[in-house]
């Protein structure tokens, strides 16, 4: 029977992929895959033909009978036909390294994984030995994809050289930023890449146990990854020397912060720890610990496989390699776009993303999650690069890009940022815990038209205090969305005047 690939990524399920699969039962051999990440085309199914895979989408279950009658199984049906997936411009323009297999392979097939270059990185690492493996990661220029952009090789070297009774590899799969789903897509679509990355990390630093801390909002990813762990154990890839356990979070955003995550893993409230000591010296249970984002770890295998130079050759400035950028919110072509650093915001949201879903002009884009700045179109020439965003008081964070049209009220977004911080603050430091409450109150006064100038001044002052006085980047970075909203969209903070003008 002809093979048809139907995604089981939760974003495809949300728009009916299971019904499509059901309608195909008995007509084709179904392979459930992750998603290619072209979410506006989901459910996007692919038919295996002698000429390669032919994609169709967005397909509804009710389309299937007609498609079958028109020659779906030979790829000749024309309705909803997208052609060869790699030729779809959104995919053709990408450089897929970390996401090379996602949406293509059966996520739980080790044979598929091997057939698509899996475990070649691990073999290379075994041949190179720990010191050279760390040197390769360092030379690749890979920086943490969780937000802070710290060089991964330096972190690994620190842990490799640290002394401890035990050492740990911890994967941060808490992915709390709105507008991001890269970790989730890999958990569901290519879980062995994370396992391989963690095994390499363990070999490089001498760790005996790994933990993956996954957010509870990802029940499908959690289930798939647990199955992948079982398969890897049965195949001896995980064994007595190094095993991995998945732990599930419980809805606290701050637990994505690395020290809070470690507290949570240890079974406590997720309160941020003061640094130093760094987790690399005293991390989980007081032992030297590598803690990396999921994308960081899942990128390591292809760096080892293809060599540091190949990875390092991509990118701009000090941002080397590729970044899985996630286009979200009010956008026509939302999805995962992995590309070398340097692509501009304008290319991302207008060219590749196709502008807003509503068809209205873009008014603002928030990059980097709830702690990221809102950029107006005037800043869309900013290239995707850690330093370029920092220079404009922004951050790329985990690579989420959230698009808003003219219906957005930026004073409300500023209020939301402060409110989010009141709910999510771990409570350990005062600027974050109390400052955010005062922030909400102050924005409310502005929205009510009370002493607007004085309150704007106060809000700015408060942001300054939070930025420099908070223990971690939750309170420290919440000022970015607030200040950028005030700076670039001042008219939204003067509702009375705005009404008068209208």
């Amino acid at each position, binding site marked *: 029977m002809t093979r048809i690939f139907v995604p089981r990524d*939760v*974003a495809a*399920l*949300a*728009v009916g992929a299971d019904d499509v699969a059901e309608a195909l039962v008995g007509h084709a051999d179904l392979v459930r895959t992750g998603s290619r990440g072209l*979410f*506006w085309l*989901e459910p996007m199914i692919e038919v295996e033909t002698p000429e390669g895979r032919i994609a169709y989408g967005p397909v509804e279950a009710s389309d299937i009978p007609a498609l079958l009658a028109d020659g779906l199984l030979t790829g000749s049906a024309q309705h909803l036909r997208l052609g060869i997936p790699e030729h779809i411009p959104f995919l053709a323009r990408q450089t897929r390294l970390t996401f090379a297999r996602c949406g293509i392979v059966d996520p739980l097939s080790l044979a598929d994984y091997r057939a698509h270059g899996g475990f070649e990185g691990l073999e290379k690492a075994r041949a190179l030995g720990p010191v050279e493996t760390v040197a390769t990661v360092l030379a690749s220029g890979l920086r943490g994809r969780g937000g802070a952009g710290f060089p991964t090789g330096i972190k690994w070297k620190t842990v490799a050289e640290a002394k401890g009774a035990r050492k740990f590899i911890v994967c941060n799969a808490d*992915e*709390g*930023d*709105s*507008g*991001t*789903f890269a*970790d*989730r897509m890999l958990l569901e679509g290519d879980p062995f890449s994370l396992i391989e990355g963690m095994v390499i990390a363990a070999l490089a630093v001498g760790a005996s146990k790994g933990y993956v801390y996954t957010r*509870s*909002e*990802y*029940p*499908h*990813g959690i289930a798939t990854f647990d199955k992948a762990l079982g398969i890897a154990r049965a195949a001896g890839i995980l064994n007595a020397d190094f095993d991995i356990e998945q*732990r*599930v*979070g*419980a*809805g*606290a*955003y701050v637990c994505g912060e690395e020290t809070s995550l470690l507290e*949570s*893993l*240890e*079974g*406590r*409230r*997720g309160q941020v720890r003061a640094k130093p000591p760094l987790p690399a010296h005293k991390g989980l*249970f007081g032992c030297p610990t590598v803690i990396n984002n999921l994308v960081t770890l899942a990128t390591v295998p292809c760096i080892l496989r293809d060599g540091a130079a190949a990875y390092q050759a991509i990118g701009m400035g000090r941002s080397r390699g590729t970044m899985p950028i*996630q*286009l*979200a*919110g*009010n*956008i026509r072509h*939302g*999805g995962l776009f992995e590309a070398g650093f340097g692509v501009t915001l304008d290319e991302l949201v207008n060219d590749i993303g196709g502008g807003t*879903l509503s068809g209205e002009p873009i008014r603002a884009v*928030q990059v980097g999650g*709830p702690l990221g700045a809102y950029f107006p179109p005037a800043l869309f020439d900013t290239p995707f690069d850690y330093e370029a965003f920092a220079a404009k008081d922004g951050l790329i964070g985990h690579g*989420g890009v*959230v*698009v*808003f*049209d003219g219906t*957005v009220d930026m004073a409300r*977004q500023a209020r*939301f940022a402060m409110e989010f911080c009141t*709910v*999510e603050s*771990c409570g350990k430091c005062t600027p974050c815990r109390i400052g955010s409450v005062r922030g909400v109150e102050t924005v409310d006064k502005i929205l009510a038209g009370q002493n607007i100038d004085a309150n704007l001044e106060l809000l700015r002052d408060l942001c300054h205090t939070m930025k420099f006085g908070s223990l971690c980047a939750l309170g420290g970075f919440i000022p970015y969305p607030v200040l950028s909203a005030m700076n670039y969209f001042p008219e939204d903070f003067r509702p009375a005047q705005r009404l008068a003008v209208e």
Partner: protein
Amino acid sequence: MANYEPWSEDRAREVIADHVNTEGAALPLLHALQAAFGCVPLAAEPLVASALNISRAEVHGIVSFYHEFRRTVPGRHVLRVCRAEACQAVGADAVGAHVRSALAVDWHETSADGAVTLEPVFCLGLCATGPSALLDGKPVGRLSPAKVDRMLETLS
């Protein structure tokens, strides 16, 4: 729709015993209790405290820190609606307001007929097809007030 066991101290002790020997056992253990009973009732706190050899105050501190742990059994269905930025950009505020008025509840509350508990969530990783929600763990995308109504009609 989930089927929860009625609260039983003996059963709770069994659940706790299954997890108490893992390192950093608190979260796995609390998740297991919530999976069994639908919530982590106050009555569970002293049992957890003695199993983990920490004070009851500490257990209370842990349970109350994490937004996900409920203190009472939820309705027959749990609807978790995303309130984060990417969903806001495509109308999540209106969807949230509509769900609340349709069920006549606020966030974290259960409708009077016990059918639906409404919980806010900050991102489900479905940010390109929002507004998003999980209904009894099943994902729903591109929510609108009309789609909410159709969805709620199917629930009993």
